[in-house]
């Protein structure tokens, strides 16, 4: 009988990754939920009566909620894998993962799945806490499979990107550059707070080069059945990034890039 693709090394590392963030859940789950709630309170209060989205078919607060949920999912998925890896590299405890017979695929999957679990936990928390703002009926996705597919793919992409960033970074400063100059601008300029149809033509075109735009737009389609671009096109773009980034991350781990000398 051949060995399973993901063996006990994966199970242990995946569980460790989940337990790691769960032990500091106040910092890793509760705090981002509260921060996202503040965004919702401020933006919905200021813009609800001033901004029309999807030709007025959806209220601004309802529109904002999926964007904020997805933003929380993406940022926390990235934070989990990147911080876990850079911490273990800086403290040199990465040796405990490099010494055992864990395959590159197992290491990759454990970090990415751990990141997805944290991202989705925070997203779930944000989603539940928004019920009082729009009512449970309005908060439930009309097409939950689309919403789930984009949440899963989006968190996988950002978990993988966090893994790449964690491997590439040699100090916390490098990771901060990655986070503040790449992830944060791409997230904020992806249509979390607005529909790209409200932008001038140039910025609308530019938004189509932002992969996070497709994650959020596709996720929003799951809620309202309305989106700025076709959900199939968004899914194709997202799937491409899942595959491309996974190949890059796997090659980095397998070659021992910045992990083994």
């Amino acid at each position, binding site marked *: 009988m051949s060995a399973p693709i993901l063996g*006990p090394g994966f199970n*242990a*590392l995946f569980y460790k990754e989940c337990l790691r963030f769960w032990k500091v859940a106040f910092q890793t789950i509760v705090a981002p939920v509260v921060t996202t709630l503040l965004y919702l309170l401020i933006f919905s209060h200021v813009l609800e009566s001033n901004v029309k989205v999807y030709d007025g078919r959806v209220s601004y607060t309802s529109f904002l909620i999926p964007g904020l949920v997805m933003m929380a999912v993406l940022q926390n998925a990235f934070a989990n894998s990147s911080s876990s890896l850079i911490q273990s590299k800086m403290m040199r405890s990465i040796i405990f993962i490099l010494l055992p017979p864990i395959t590159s695929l197992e290491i990759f999957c454990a970090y990415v799945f751990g990141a997805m679990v944290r991202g989705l936990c925070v997203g779930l928390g944000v989603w539940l806490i928004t019920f009082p703002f729009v009512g449970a009926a309005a908060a439930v996705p009309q097409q939950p499979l689309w919403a789930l597919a984009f949440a899963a793919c989006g968190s996988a992409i950002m978990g993988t990107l966090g893994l790449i960033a964690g491997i590439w970074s040699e100090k916390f400063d490098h990771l901060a550059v990655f986070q503040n100059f790449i992830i944060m601008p791409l997230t904020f300029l992806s249509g979390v707070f607005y529909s790209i149809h409200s932008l001038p033509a140039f910025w609308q075109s530019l938004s189509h080069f932002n992969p996070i735009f497709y994650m959020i737009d596709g996720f929003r389609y799951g809620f309202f059945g309305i989106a700025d671009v076709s959900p199939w096109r968004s899914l194709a773009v997202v799937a491409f990034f899942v595959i491309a980034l996974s190949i890059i991350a796997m090659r980095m781990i397998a070659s021992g890039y910045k992990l*083994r000398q």
Partner: protein
Amino acid sequence: MNPVSNKTAAVNVDDVCKSYPNVRALNHVSLRVEQGEFFALLGPNGAGKTTLISILAGLTRADSGHAAIMGHDTIADYRDARKNLGVVPQELVYDPFFSVRETLRFQARYYGVPKPDAWIDEILHNLDLTGKANENMRSLSGGMKRRVLVGQALVHKPPVIVLDEPTAGVDVELRQNLWTFIKRLNGEGHTIILTTHYLEEAEALCNRVAMLKNGEIVALDTTANLLRGMSGITVQISADTTPVSWAPRSSAQASGAFGFTLSGYAELESLLAAFREANIAIRELKLGEADLERAFLKLTSHTAVAA
């Protein structure tokens, strides 16, 4: 004598080279450690010991040559090679999120040990950590963290155990407990490879010794043979002068005494007779026997001169 046998070597290093920018860390190193040996890897700082261990553990890739653990190549057959190896790293590293027991459980499960708790309890007992099992790693002293590292290396019961400076920072009593435990494991058939700065530990524990300097093996022999090579004795004599016939063989010591290296106690009698005949009063006499430290210093200083 190198106890080569037909059994698969516990560790086989074949013509391994490794360079870092501006440093040749290992230069065509070959060595074979048999199963069940208690083997010492000695050398000054920067000799290449940790690089060699890292290559065995798969943490570093050799530029050329091969290394194998229990017959499994560390690159081509890395999973089986790593299953057969436990490493206590030199650096005091730990994951601050977890307790001692969690740390050991995770390490056991990385290796696929299905029910590790009974063995973990035994390890904790032998390393005197039972009372700390549920404490967070951050709260442990340096010596305790070092012992957890030893536990992590043993948790999957590997046939080959590499201990890179395992007793650094561990107090004397616990060091003795640790060695008793390691000796027991060796007695049960585990191969132990040890690097240490405490040469008396290597002398007392190890059957065979390799000495590294500047990335090359300068001595590889049984501990007994190395000591036999140093079978002479050293004598320090405090006196106003030294007999003329012995002057070429004397060396001035920092303490003002004269130092002599003799082939054995028979020659000591001749030396003392020369002092008597020359009517030179001896104020103080100190004898030193052969030990691994002298062998180590002799071999490493010799190659330094040769270089």
